[in-house]
């Protein structure tokens, strides 16, 4: 296999790490996640996309002799000698249920669904813990002012790993509050698209039915000819091709 392969290293290159207090010797180039696998763990908890997008592998660690507590994603953080590791694959966080169609995008909504927003101490422990480098304190401050648009904007890159909530002395679950703000913004505050509404009306009126029916009937040769004859909308930027 060309991937996920373990580094070819000699004994002398290995460094000690402590997985939940137990010592293992691992290659120094590995991420925390791959070091755990090198040590023999077949991960079930604490492993998701392995690419820094899903937030499954929140990890807290200390380095021997350094009093500071560090945080990171196991799939994105490289091991260091004498690292003491603890994954936090699950954390009990408060989450309200609500009907998004029956809300108003106001401060009152935010405060009634999550009254604890107003308990934020502004200490910034959340910001320090965020592996996405989001200024969690800043979006919570916006939330305290009822500024839903700013809260939505500043929290946008959140992967909901929960490390902010783990650290919060005011017992907030910031990431759950933030997604409420983003959904309120997306549904109620973002400007609506006129061209989208018009297209929906056109489809519902059956305006494309004939064209589609005709395309479906075409022989492969006719379809290829139509495809080749397409005019391509000019673009200023480069074309993208992924996902």
């Amino acid at each position, binding site marked *: *296999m*060309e*991937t*996920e*392969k*373990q580094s070819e290293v000699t004994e002398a290159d290995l460094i000690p790490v402590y997985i939940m207090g137990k010592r293992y010797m691992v290659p120094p*180039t*590995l991420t925390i996640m*791959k070091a755990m696998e*090198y040590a*023999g*763990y*077949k*991960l*079930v*908890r604490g492993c998701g*996309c*392995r*690419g*820094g997008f899903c937030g*499954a592998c929140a990890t807290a660690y200390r380095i021997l002799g350094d009093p500071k507590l560090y945080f990171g994603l196991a799939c*994105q953080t*490289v091991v260091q000698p004498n690292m003491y590791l603890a994954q936090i694959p699950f954390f009990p966080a408060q989450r309200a*249920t609500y009907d*998004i169609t029956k809300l108003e995008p106001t401060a009152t909504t935010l405060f009634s669904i999550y009254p604890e927003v107003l308990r934020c101490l502004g200490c910034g422990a959340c910001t320090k813990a965020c592996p996405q480098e989001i200024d969690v304190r800043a979006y919570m401050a916006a939330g305290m002012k009822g500024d839903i648009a700013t809260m939505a904007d500043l929290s*946008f*890159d959140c992967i*909901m790993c929960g490390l902010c909530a783990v650290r919060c002395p005011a017992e907030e679950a910031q990431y759950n509050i933030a*997604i409420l703000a*983003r959904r309120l913004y*997306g*549904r109620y505050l*973002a*400007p609506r*698209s*006129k*061209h*989208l*509404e*018009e*297209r929906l009306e056109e489809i519902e009126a059956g305006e*494309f039915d004939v*064209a*589609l029916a005709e*395309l*479906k009937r075409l022989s*492969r040769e006719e379809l*290829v000819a139509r*495809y080749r004859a*397409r*005019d*391509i*909308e000019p*673009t200023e*930027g480069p*074309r*993208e*091709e*992924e*996902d």
Partner: protein
Amino acid sequence: MSGYPPEMQESIRLVEATRLRRLKETFPTMSLEEREQVLNAFHPDYIKEKMRAIRVGVSKGQRMPVELADIVEGRPHIGPDFDLSEPFAETDVLVIGGGGAGASAALLAQENGAKVILVTKLRFGDANTMMAQGGIQAADRPNDSPAIHYLDVMGGGHFTNVPELVEALVMDAPFVIKWLEDLGMMFDKEPDGTMVERHGGGTSRMRMHSARDYSGAEIMRTLRDEVRNREEDITVIEFSPAVELVLDDKGQIAGAVVMNLETGVYSYIKAKAVILATGGGGRLHYQGFPTTNHYGATADGVVMAYRVGAPLGYLESMQYHPTGAAFPEQIVGLLVTEKVRGLGAQPVNKYGEQFVYPLEPRDVEAAAFIRECKERGNGIITPTGQPGVWLDSPMIEIIQGPGTIKKNLPAMVRQFGRFGIDITQEPMLVYPTLHYQNGGVRLRADGSTEIPGLFIAGEVSGGVHGHNRLMGNSLLEITVFGRRSGRSAAAYAQQVKPGKPTLAHIEAWNRELEEAGVDTGVISPILLPDYTRRV
């Protein structure tokens, strides 16, 4: 300080030495014959000994990667005598899979009156949906139409797509955008509400909607949040992958056996309808390729559906993206967007020389990278033995002006920057990566399959994309067919007359394997790849 080891830096010096000369050089595009040649010799799909036909079941003869064939022909986790008499839970609709397709399906099934259980292998939302960056297609601008979208999809798929499925995809697309927006998804928009839309490979109109470079994550977390808000009707059970579908004595679906990943306990969930939304199989690492896929992508749905008799299709073609990261080790296989080449970066070998036109079709480009490394020995080998070629990103700033990379490729800058590599100053090492399963279980336009009560949605299905999917049509597919299958499954569950659950199909399957002399030695679905070190 460079994040590259000294031996790789030596090669980078050569790349730098040729850069100014290369700026003026355009590598010729391949003729159709040359394309055919390089594909035949080096594209993974064309390597005959790495593909084989399956020897049992309703789609006997279907060719697919050997790694997939081995698990499709595997033995079930449980025997035919597994006790179904006391189900662990009962529901109208059982959704298997907690990605974007499963979440969409659960919501629509619930809206149409069904009680729903959603089981998922890992956490709800640990899925390829979460990792999709680029966007979602929908023909909603005045100069565009579903008909034009249809043509683009068919052409992209080499005209092998199922027309009815493509019609469903393009006609539902604008409704899906509206649905997501109503759920509170934040699309990129102009101040007046006009959607920001761009081109994707193979599109003739700009119709790629996005949410910064977190398009899939924004869809996934919005759908997930909405599912959680409907907890009275939708029960989510995490860390419980399905391992076997259950039929009744009339041949209708009757639920599934799931495994608690933490305790190893198997239990039966009885259901009137099942929606399979288990995604693809990148973690099977066909031919040893790294993958862009999430940890749980092991083709479980194809295995389970096939065992109860659902036909497969299009599995002879997998999508390999030419530019997966090949260094550093920590991000091997992750996607490097095609936009990098679009902005002017050339692929070059270890001597700093071009060897392929930068924007050949995706399969051709990938094959040329493999040829450069495997046949010509001109690749760069990393300390962990991973081959790759350089993607000369610093060219972009020379061609387009300083600051272009930071403005256009912020996610890439962050991704490599974490490991001490400044892509504005140093090239990226890339190699093809396993990206998408074009085929799968054959799908009908209403989300149903040949098996009564079994519905499917997303990457597990086959037919929508033919033999090649375009960018932005997978986020679309999971929502379009997730919704369709959810709606259909709820309607089906209301009228079906369930029979007696049985695992007779396992007996028949095992017998067929024995009669055909097939023993791959695999218990499937395999559920997770094994990356633990062999000592």
